[in-house]
């Protein structure tokens, strides 16, 4: 489903990605782990077509993300930690709007808001700072694309909504969705992802199915995550 070849990304003097190669199959969940600044967010943003790579090639479902952008975008949805400007709308109105634009059932909007622990009737402007990024997460779920790209989703959720969220992702994965997420807690990833890729200084240093790669970062405090 996703093929990444010799992907590099440089920001002026900083090299965020230095030759990443990855193959991710349909219906697979891959966790990307790594320390702060390892390039996880940059990799996810490039896969989400939000960022242009400096060099290398990324194909999603056989389509090049650079030359076939308009065909790739309906296949992917990305959730990061960015705020969404409510523009006076409520949570359910925004999610219904996303569903409608993506031609998905609008009825799913309220249930997905509840899955990520948001009050569907709450005005977006009133959401607490820590809770606000869940809206982007909910929007990505509502879009229910072929490829779901989630940047530290478990960092956004407290214990309450986590089980329901994992169940939703498992169901999506089993239905054929490809999920790529960055994570820092081994327990979340082990239940969900078949493989774990460890990213260090912009390079994939380990990809395995035994979650060995995660153990190296388990002791890190969660606030360090988000590179």
């Amino acid at each position, binding site marked *: 489903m996703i093929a990444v070849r010799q992907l590099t*990304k440089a*920001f002026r003097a*900083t090299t*965020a990605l230095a030759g990443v190669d990855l193959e991710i199959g349909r219906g697979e969940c891959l966790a990307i782990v790594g320390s702060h*600044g390892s*390039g996880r*967010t*940059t990799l996810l*943003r490039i896969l*989400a*077509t*939000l*960022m*242009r790579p400096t060099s290398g090639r990324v194909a999603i479902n056989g389509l090049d993300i650079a030359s076939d*952008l*308009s065909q790739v*975008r*309906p296949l*992917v*949805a*990305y959730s990061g930690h*960015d705020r*969404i*400007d409510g*523009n*006076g*709308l409520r949570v359910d*109105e925004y999610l219904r*709007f*996303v569903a*409608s*634009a*993506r031609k998905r059932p609008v009825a799913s909007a309220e249930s997905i808001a509840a899955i990520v622990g948001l009050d569907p009737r709450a005005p977006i402007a009133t959401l607490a700072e820590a809770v606000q990024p869940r809206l*982007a997460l909910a*929007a*990505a779920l509502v*879009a229910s694309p072929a490829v779901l790209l989630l940047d530290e989703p478990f960092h956004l959720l407290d214990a309450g909504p986590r089980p329901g969220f994992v169940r939703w992702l498992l169901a999506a994965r089993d239905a054929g969705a490809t999920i790529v997420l960055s994570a820092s807690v081994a327990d979340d990833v082990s239940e969900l992802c078949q493989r774990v890729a460890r990213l260090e200084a912009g390079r994939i240093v380990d990809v395995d199915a035994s979650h060995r790669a995660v153990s190296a970062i388990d002791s890190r405090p969660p606030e360090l995550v988000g*590179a």
Partner: protein
Amino acid sequence: MRAMLIREALVVARRPAVVSIVVVYSGLLALFLSAWGGQRVPMLPGATVYAQLQLLQCALLIVVMPWAAARTVATERADDLVRLSAILAIPPSRVIIARLLAAAIAPALVVAGALPVALIAQQMSAVPVSRALADQITLLTFALPAAVVAVWWMQISSDRLLGWLGATASTMLLVTVARFVFPGALTAAVVAAACAMAGGAMLASRADLWWRHLRGESA
């Protein structure tokens, strides 16, 4: 596209500013009528109260229309627009087209809201109602240029106040040039609207290049 249009229109409708702008604008016109309407008007000797109200309408609308559009339109710009376009899987050009159309709603409502006051002035001055309606349609036509100019400014300016000031100055310039080159008000309005449509089309076409990816200054 339909979803985008509905969302942009909903955003405009939710802004409390729409109602206040309509009330303030119509209120000022009504105040003008009640203060000077029954008497000889000192402002322009020989001119009917309707003609003077029209002059006041034009002067106010040049400021109020861009403000109404800038104050009510959805606020995503630059990287936020890229993210919105990506999550919706809609090209940025379509987001902009929907926004341009929605931005015209508030200025149009401002003009429409003052229609009763204009009709009272028309009755007071014994001007044919058809002429009053034609004049209001002419003013309504200016909603499009005001909206396009405001959206342009709001997209390129990070500050809303600066965007409004820029939009007001640009609208003033556009209307003055159109009015100077084309003596008929309706012709000037139609030409300004045509220019605005061209400007809107240009913004939409550039949007797919400008807001295709995040600016990406940092990792």
